């Protein structure tokens, strides 16, 4: 199904600047109809969630900062579907979507942003550190690059125990220039660890264009050779391409084929974080990419494949309802209380450093 549909749908949308269809990796296989619907549903859930999160910032109900995946949903959704429940996710501060993609409670995520007791981390971690170990979300990390090395360890212990789990680490284009990236990729390759490194290339760090500070045009793919890996570039706004490529990489890792490095080209609709209007980006670039919206693209593809608009509208409505009730539940939950301040520094549950 996917392939034929894809061609049609893509024909409707012209590729935005920076996305060269010719250079893209073409994964094999097709997307089953039920998976396709789930991919759509997850992208819509993420989209509606992030929009709500944005509104709550603006009402300053969410304190601190926050980094949204608006416009980048296809990557988290595609991997979310391709991964097995036993697989591990290592996300960044921009990890709402990746956490939801593994089935984490939306109320738990929303509650964490609001600093409430119902938060995934009881409000102690915040938007940048979402974690849900039960669903394989091994954490979101806010220091660029660090989690790429941590993912090695999760993969190592799986191999050590003979479990066929794979660790997937998501990171940005800017992260490819920090030392930890280099150390992680090399050790993963040397030890043939089951790790899939996913670079979400949205062309910018915070406010600086990646091409102005990177020695090669493709920040991740052009580094793959330095670790004996293949440079794979995919359309990060195409959930099918992400899903099918993810499935291949995950399978290879499970078979002992070692790590993969995938560069997914995408774009963030908004600024880097709450504080950022994103003014440093050329207007036409923003417009072209906003038009090349992964959710719009995917919906039109499904419609072209014969899925009834009504069915998709129902999915949209369900997602909105889920976001609304998650918001209400989170708001209804009390702020994290004093009783949690001094707990869980240590495995004994406390924080005593002296007798």
């Amino acid at each position, binding site marked *: 199904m996917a392939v034929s549909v894809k061609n049609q749908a893509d024909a409707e949308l012209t590729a935005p600047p920076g996305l060269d269809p010719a250079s893209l990796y073409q994964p094999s296989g097709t997307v089953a109809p039920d998976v396709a619907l789930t991919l759509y549903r997850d992208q819509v859930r993420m989209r509606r969630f992030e929009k709500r999160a944005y509104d709550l910032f603006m009402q300053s109900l969410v304190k*601190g900062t926050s980094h949204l995946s608006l416009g980048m949903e296809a990557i988290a959704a595609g991997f979310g579907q391709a991964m097995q429940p036993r697989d591990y996710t290592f996300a960044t501060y921009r990890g709402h979507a990746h956490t939801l993609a593994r089935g984490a409670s939306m109320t738990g995520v929303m509650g964490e942003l609001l600093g409430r007791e119902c938060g995934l981390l009881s409000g102690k971690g915040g938007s940048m550190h979402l974690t849900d170990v039960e669903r394989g979300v091994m954490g979101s990390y806010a220091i660029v690059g660090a989690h790429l090395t941590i993912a090695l360890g999760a993969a190592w212990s799986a191999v050590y125990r003979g479990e066929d789990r794979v660790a997937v680490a998501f990171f940005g284009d*800017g992260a490819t220039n920090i030392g930890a990236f280099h150390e992680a990729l090399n050790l993963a390759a040397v030890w043939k660890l089951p790790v899939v490194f996913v670079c979400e290339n949205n062309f910018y760090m*915070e406010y600086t264009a990646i091409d102005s*500070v990177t020695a090669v045009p493709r920040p991740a793919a052009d580094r793959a050779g330095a670790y004996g890996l293949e440079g794979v570039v995919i359309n990060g706004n195409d959930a099918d391409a992400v899903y099918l490529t993810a499935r291949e990489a995950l399978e290879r890792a499970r078979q002992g084929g070692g790590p993969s490095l995938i560069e997914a080209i995408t774009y963030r609709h908004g600024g880097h974080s709450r504080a950022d209007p994103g003014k440093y980006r050329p207007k036409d670039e923003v417009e072209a990419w906003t038009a090349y919206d992964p959710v719009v693209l995917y919906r039109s593809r499904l419609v072209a494949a014969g899925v009834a608009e009504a069915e998709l509208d129902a999915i949209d409505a369900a997602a909105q309802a889920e976001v609304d009730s998650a918001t209400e539940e989170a708001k209804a939950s009390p702020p*994290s209380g004093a009783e949690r301040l001094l707990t869980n520094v240590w495995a004994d549950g406390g924080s005593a450093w002296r007798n």
Partner: protein
Amino acid sequence: MAELTYREAVARAIAQEMERDESVVLIGEDVGAAGGVFKATVGLFDKFGPKRVRDTPISEQAILGATMGAAMTGLRPIAEVMFADFFAVCWDIVANQIAKSRYMTDGQVSFPLVIRAGNGGGLRFGAQHSQSIENWAMMIPGLKVVAPATPADVVGLLAAAVRDDDPVVFCEHKALYASKGEVPDGEIVDKLGTAKVLRSGSDATIVALANMVPRALAAAEQLAANGIDATVVDVRSLVPLDTQTILAEVSKTGRLFTVEENPRLCGWGAEVVSIVSEECFDSLDGPIVRITTPHIPLPSADALEDMAIPSVDRITEVVQKALQE
């Protein structure tokens, strides 16, 4: 005299020094065209251009390595480490290379450089973006450490740091960036290693730093209302440390209280307490009390973070209780 925000004061100090000295350059992530993620370097890129204000990749080791190499060959670079927590990814360059190389070479090289960093909590950024790391730097021989509390001190101390021939870790408190204060017109150059007595009292000496200074002053007002007359000292500079002022002020009141934002163990407060308990033991009338954040990572939720960092009320209560005992 003009009213500036703390962040505007940073940009003003850098501009003042860059205008004065061609060898002063600015380097860091997003410091240029974007004016810094804390907007503390706004206008510098337009004014001094891309040759003197350089945006970098996310490569803190390369940023500070380049800063070090430039300083040892004639430039006076100012580097920005966006959040002080990120010193952890480039600590080798700071603690092992910059801090030690002058001593190791018996003076063949010097490092006239400044490393600015957004330090401290209160912004609900969570444990990896809220640390007060002034003690990380204070414990390393070869680093000078400064942490201003007001816009005027930002300008004067940052200018002094740039002119200093040694490496200075300049801690800008994130929670103070939006705060305002009067700053005299014209060139301002302060002196490193000088504490300021902001309030003189007879009952207790409260020593504070950075964002704890306004809180200590507010607490002193509350204490005054309860009949306790407290001295408040703004340390301003941890290395060099103005021990004379601190010792003198403690001797006058006989009671010392330190107010630290950093976690409990091995902070600058412990160092001050140790100096005082060795050097003016006889003038102490009672136990020395440190008021600090508990020894925990900082929580993100506003309610929790506010409980963790010393508040005006907590300072007041602790001092009051200690003096009653």
